[in-house]
């Protein structure tokens, strides 16, 4: 990618090892302000681990993650969130005792909850409830504001998770498989919502298995396989890359993909 372009998030040479297993191997990529970047790859490619290294759930063994030039290395999760990251989790985790609106308002109150003392001295949730309602409208579930999350279907909860992440007013929104578990109609609708949110000016990194929707809404892709970055760039070009095709169609390694004769020979023997 062009280095002259402004960078919001920079992942530089990040390696994550769990004991002997290298989950992420020297991966680098940049996220530019305003873009919708798809981070894709087959199962076990290391996408979620990459995301966790960005949010701080796992610590990178090597490499740097910087947001607007500030390093995030060594910071705990909440500090990274306070600096402008926001995560919509793959497994939706609403607080079930409070209403859908209160869930979003809780996130919107980030400035009030930064220190316990400040939190103790403030009671009113009025402003946060207004922001909360706005966010619910943005993701299209304002009608459910006063209900409890426990009884809602997954489609609503996925949108709630996203509204809550948006309420933090992030510089960068990380979406971890928001379409997983939805039927094609719901997935299509939610993907359109994601594209809308991006158009409204939110920079997004989207991890997703649903390639059809990824191709439809993402402006740029980064492809991981076996913990390594194997391609990046404009979606159509990336998907035509032989290495990417091999990764998705079952070639085991990049090496094999680069030696198509070997793969073909193996196929004949089988």
């Amino acid at each position, binding site marked *: 990618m062009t280095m002259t372009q402004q960078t919001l998030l920079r992942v530089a040479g990040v390696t994550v090892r769990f004991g002997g297993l290298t989950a992420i191997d020297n991966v680098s990529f940049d996220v530019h302000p305003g873009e919708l970047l798809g981070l894709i790859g087959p199962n076990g490619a290391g996408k979620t681990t990459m995301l966790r290294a960005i949010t701080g759930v796992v610590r990178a063994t090597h490499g740097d993650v910087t947001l607007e030039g500030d390093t995030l290395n060594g910071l705990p999760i909440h500090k990274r*969130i306070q600096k402008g990251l926001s995560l919509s989790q793959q497994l939706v985790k609403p*607080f079930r*005792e409070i209403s859908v609106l209160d869930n979003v308002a*809780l996130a919107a109150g*980030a400035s009030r*909850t930064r220190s316990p003392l400040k939190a103790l001295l403030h009671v009113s949730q009025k402003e946060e409830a207004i922001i909360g309602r706005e966010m619910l409208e943005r993701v299209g579930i304002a009608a459910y504001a006063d209900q409890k999350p426990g009884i809602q279907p997954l489609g609503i909860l996925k949108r709630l998770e996203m509204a*809550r992440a948006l309420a933090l007013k992030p510089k960068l929104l990380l979406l971890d498989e928001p379409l997983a578990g939805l039927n094609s109609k719901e997935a299509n609708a939610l993907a359109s919502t994601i594209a809308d949110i991006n158009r409204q000016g939110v920079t997004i990194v989207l991890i997703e298995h649903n390639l059809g929707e990824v191709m439809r809404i993402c402006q740029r892709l980064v492809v991981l396989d076996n913990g390594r970055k194997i391609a990046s760039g404009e979606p159509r070009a990336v998907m035509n890359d032989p290495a990417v095709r091999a990764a998705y169609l079952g070639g085991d390694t990049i090496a094999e993909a680069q030696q198509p004769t070997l793969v073909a020979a193996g196929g004949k023997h089988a």
Partner: protein
Amino acid sequence: MEYEISLLTSMAISVLFALSLNLITGFCGQISLGHAAFLGIGAYLSALLSKAGLPFLATLPLGMLLAGVIGVVVGLASLRVRADFLAITTMGVGFLFVGIVRQQEWLGGELGVSAIPDSGLSKTGFMLLSLGLCLVTAALCIYIRKSWMGRVFNGVAEDEDTMRVLGIDVPRYKLAAFAIGTALAGLAGGLYAQHLKFIGPDSFGFVESVTVLSMVVVGGIGSVVGVAFGAAVLSALPAWFQFIGDYKLLVYGGLLFLMMRFSPGGMASIVTRVVNSRNKAQGDRT
């Protein structure tokens, strides 16, 4: 009348003590099986300072301060452990307190501290002071519940990992809960020492920690009114039925078990269930 005044006083102290644990365990979801240690810290400090000549009322804030500071230290040690391991850690703190106090000559050792000087208040005056402080504590708890701090505590109790993702500094909130809860336990301790005029290491052992936890659980974990009611009733029981005093651990431990098994929300949730049975049935499913 003398008897009723004394009973009301000890009920008020128990309620205050139970509310202090409710702040940590009920609001913030951090279980503690050693909470009596903080009652003990407040009690010993107040008793010793009173004997040294300090006016009783001046010893109360000092007891709160010391208990709160040690509470934060214990909280710091507890930040890395969760749920059952936290229960074991705090239980260890309880045993540590009793173990240390037993060995210290200047703390009265096995014999404890007796002949604690009078507060200068009449019996009725002291009862009113206890009741007043108990009410202020209950009001504080209700306020905290309504504030942003209460919202965060709720979230930490339900799912602290998600709270981190929402940018919440979870350790600081846990420490805040420990600080406030243990300081209030220290306040209860000061009143306790003054009320009984005698304290010993056994007054603050494991049995007391289980007793106060059962008060919280029986009343309804997290519910201020429920816990106050539960603590008031359970603290009066031994006065009404002599045998309960002899089998404290059995009775309170049994109650704790029964409540956890059949109504984890305590009496508060039984009441809500009866009042609003349909909605509640849905809530429990989730």
